[in-house]
């Protein structure tokens, strides 16, 4: 419970710092909203020319996108690790973190979190709601519970992969461009994976399982049984990949030697 108390303290500090620069705060918010709106415009324009995208209707694709936004928002709020190499390795902040009695990853996460990105959960909810309005969905009483499990699983998939990628910096302090590459692969998970070739489907399922963040769970929630097994696997895949990420982080910390002087 100490961790949660700490999280709260960090959060308060964060809000104080953030509100000092209100314009940044607001502009960040509008930038997020803008990028989501642009992706929606893309889907809407595309469906001006076709009735189905790989067998999915307009509102089903919108639903999948809206669903994807939710785990994505939770992930970006708490695993804002983009600047890790610069801040913690090159500038040596990690040495400070390591002298403190809380797990290093938790500290790094708390120091770099961006809770305003949680607004994306609301946006995703609205987008999903808009799609549901037009779809004849029939949810069982346990589906909302599954929904929460799917979201957590999706967050764990993203978190595991990015923690693992970030921990590469612990082994070698040279900059690598692997994060933007993986980010771009991640965008593939926002659309029905059956439109991609078999190799890409395999990669998105087993190697970099981004399909579990967006498409598989969303297809189950849309009442499509074809990918049900995969949807149910979401929490398992999440647990496996998060453990892998955590393992490589812990090994990296043991291995960490500092960046010179």
């Amino acid at each position: 419970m100490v961790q949660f108390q700490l999280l709260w303290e960090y959060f308060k500090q964060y809000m104080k710092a953030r509100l000092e620069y209100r314009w940044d705060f607001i502009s960040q918010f509008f930038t997020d909203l803008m990028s989501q709106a642009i992706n929606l415009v893309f889907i809407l324009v595309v469906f001006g020319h076709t009735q189905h995208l790989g067998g999915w209707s307009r509102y089903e694709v919108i639903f999948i996108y809206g669903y994807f936004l939710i785990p994505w928002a939770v992930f970006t709020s708490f695993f804002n690790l983009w600047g890790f190499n610069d801040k913690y390795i090159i500038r040596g902040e990690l040495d400070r973190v390591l002298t403190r009695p809380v797990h290093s990853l938790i500290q790094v996460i708390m120091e770099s979190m961006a809770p305003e990105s949680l607004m994306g959960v609301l946006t995703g909810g609205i987008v999903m709601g808009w799609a549901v309005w037009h779809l004849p969905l029939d949810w069982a009483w346990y589906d909302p519970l599954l929904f929460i499990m799917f979201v957590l699983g999706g967050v764990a998939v993203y978190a595991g992969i990015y923690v693992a990628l970030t921990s590469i910096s612990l082994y070698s302090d040279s900059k690598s461009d692997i994060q933007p590459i993986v980010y771009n692969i991640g965008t593939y998970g926002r659309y029905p994976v059956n439109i991609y070739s078999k190799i890409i489907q395999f990669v998105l399922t087993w190697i970099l399982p981004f399909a579990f963040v967006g498409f598989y769970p969303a297809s189950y929630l849309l009442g499509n049984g074809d990918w049900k097994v995969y949807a149910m696997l979401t929490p398992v895949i999440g647990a496996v990949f998060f453990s892998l990420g955590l393992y490589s982080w812990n090994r990296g910390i043991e291995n960490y030697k500092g960046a010179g002087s």
Partner: protein
Amino acid sequence: MIRMYAEIIRIRFLMMLAYRVNYYSGILIYSLNIGAYYFLWTAIYGGQGSINGFTALQMATYIAISWMSRAFYFNNVDREIATEIRDGTVAIQFIRPYNYLMVKVFQSFGEGIFRLVLFSVPGMFLVSLIFPIQLPGFGWIWLKFALSLFLGFVINIQINILVGILAFFVLNNQGMLWAKRMIVDLLSGLTIPIAFFPIWAQWVLKALPFQAISYLPSVVIVKDLSGSAFWGAVGVQAMWCLLLLIPIQMIWNKARHTLVVQGG
């Protein structure tokens, strides 16, 4: 004067060459984007042979060409200018015997040429191995494309400069720069060719400068424009090149007189 600017292009080119390894990942990222849009559009076409005057093959070619052109015209001049305004180094630039904005333009041109040669060309080769696309053989069309692409570069950098020098008035414009980048990608026709927007949106987009950055050059080569269609496209681009000079000059003049160096 011209020798100096030629030297600026050369130096930036060599600078980029020193860090060329960074560009391999760039090729991969662009190929990933091309792949994503390729599969999406293939699914959209389904069995349909042609939509809004684009065949499926032309569409695939359009995606590849427009992304690889982006590698040429894209630059971070907006952010560079904004940073130099924020940390005050812009004041030093003012007393040097050159035109600050022109130096930025030529530096980016050096950067663009570097990426065209070491990024777009091999990238295009890679992409043509993976996806079925159809490029014209050697001929005048490549020269026409080069002219149109160059004008697209000029318009893009003019817009970047405009947004960058707004930092004189809005002290922290990071968010604005991000938003601008996404808007340009959408409105320039990179993600969706202008001809695919609803009619009313096409009217709006054709009245804006963004389509001249990506859509017009890509259409020139994909549809093998000639005669009045080609000169019409290039004419629109040339018009924007001139028109955009006006707001830049106005803001620049105003900004230089109201310069407040932050901090220090």
